[in-house]
């Protein structure tokens, strides 16, 4: 399947992906209204130190432990995309306890959120990829694990 991948060498740690993600998922059409002066809740986050940096978002695992562990039946696999039903999530954070990538985090309302590849928001394609100034983040097919 197509996934979001990051090239560590090209990532500048500019954090633009975080802002683009939060904006794309805000449901608002004005970036200033959506983000300025507010805490942002992106579904991608930049990790690293002064030498290495890279952005982390859901890997859409073939065998997703978050889905198997969700106590609310809120996480599911829709085709190949791991989705969360925020209406069912109760914010217990078991998914945070099990995700080996640290790819889930609370939303502003306290229920969990995760990358759903922008397939259902107004962006229509991963906003982190679209807005990456150095093309360090890509959205492509790399084949499945052995």
């Amino acid at each position, binding site marked *: *399947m197509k*996934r979001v*991948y*990051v090239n*560590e060498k090209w990532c500048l740690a500019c954090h633009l992906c975080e802002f683009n993600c939060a904006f794309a998922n805000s449901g608002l059409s004005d970036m200033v209204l959506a983000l300025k002066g507010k805490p942002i809740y992106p579904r991608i986050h930049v*990790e*690293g*130190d002064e030498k*290495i940096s*890279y952005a*982390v978002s859901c*890997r859409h*695992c*073939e*065998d997703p*432990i978050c889905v*198997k*562990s969700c*106590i*609310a*039946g809120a996480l599911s696999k829709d085709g190949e995309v791991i989705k969360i039903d925020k*209406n*069912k999530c*109760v*914010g*217990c*954070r*078991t*998914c*945070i*306890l*099990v*995700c*080996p*990538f*640290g790819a*889930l*985090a609370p939303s502003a309302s306290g229920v969990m959120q995760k990358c759903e590849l922008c397939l259902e928001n107004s962006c229509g394609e991963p906003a982190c990829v679209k807005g990456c100034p150095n093309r360090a983040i890509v959205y492509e097919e*790399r*084949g*499945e*694990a052995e």
Partner: protein
Amino acid sequence: MKNYVIIGNGIAAAGCIEGIRSVDKESPITVVSEEKHEVYCRPLISYYLEGKTDLDRMRYRGADFYEKNGCSVLYGVKAEHILADTKEVALSDGRKLPYDALTLAAGSSPFVPPFAGLELVKSRHSFMTLDDALGLEQAITPDSRVLIVGAGLIGLKCAEGLHGRVAEITVCDLADRVLSSILDEECAYRMQKCLEEQGIRFFLGDSASRFDEHHAFMRSGAIVGFDVLVLAVGVRANTGLFREIGGNVNRGILVDERMQTSVPGIFAAGDCAEGLDISCGTKRVLAILPNAYMQGHAAGANMAGGNEIFDKGIPMNSIGFFGLHAMTAGSYDGEVYEEKTEKSLKRLFTKDDRLLGFILIGCEERAGIYTSLIREKTPLSSLNFDLLKKGATTLAFSPETRRKKFGGAV
């Protein structure tokens, strides 16, 4: 075609159904469900009382789950005996259900110690099932004084669920601290304080020596008045059916990593089963939802002739009260790394180049990275553990490992 029978209709059974269908799309599955409900999210019963979910959203799977998976569910029917010689299950409605492969996903039952005078208490409840929660909801009024016996996960989640809906909540436990099965004294005290700030009252290291209809007479001499009593002392794995056919049982039904029991053709999964806890290397009942699903899935796949191994079982809990979250995993053995602030507490337990367990309170960000080290038995010498101690980050892995983890599909 085979006949698959599952005793139980909880999360382990749902995992089992999906496990069977990962191998065999055709053969009929029969589910024996003592509860008259479709599979629901059992741990959400406290969230239901709290108003954070409702009966519809508590469904574990979609409304077409059984139909889509070719299952017939016998609601309100109890499995009375296993007839291993003829490969049948004798049901409470007198029928005999033939099986080629059977999974016991029978869960656990509340354990009620013999309290003097308990029979005098008319409003007496357990807190294990949806019907328990609905019954409790019926029993309470805004003026109710509730006494919960048991300060474990079930008792305290019940307290949180009832908070704001009743006048007074008191929790007692024979143990000297709350959540004694997963937290040490210091961590337990932090959680207790958070609950006390919400007005929940505790009697710890104390127990009722006797009851009358509206009072618990505590060993300490205290008298606790109540209108509604909840018994959340502990649970016992439902092993009776299997024990009576001579199967190997300890605290739970003993299973190997394929969820195979000691009797050919019979598998077990979830809260009734006792499998390997890889964080300590001994068999334990791991009565947690993720374990139930994963064991169930393996049991199902193997019932259907597959070969699915589940060898990553560890205890792990994410439990929050009034916004304070505690996460625990694995075993608390070996050397301890500790970080404390007023608002957070972190303990990592390491031994023989491995992370064996952790306790995190108020600092649960990306905790799954720690959990994966326990489950994968990752040698700590293969990564930058000094960095990882400070905070869970994939930066601690070598660039090569990170490329493998992030580079392709998982």
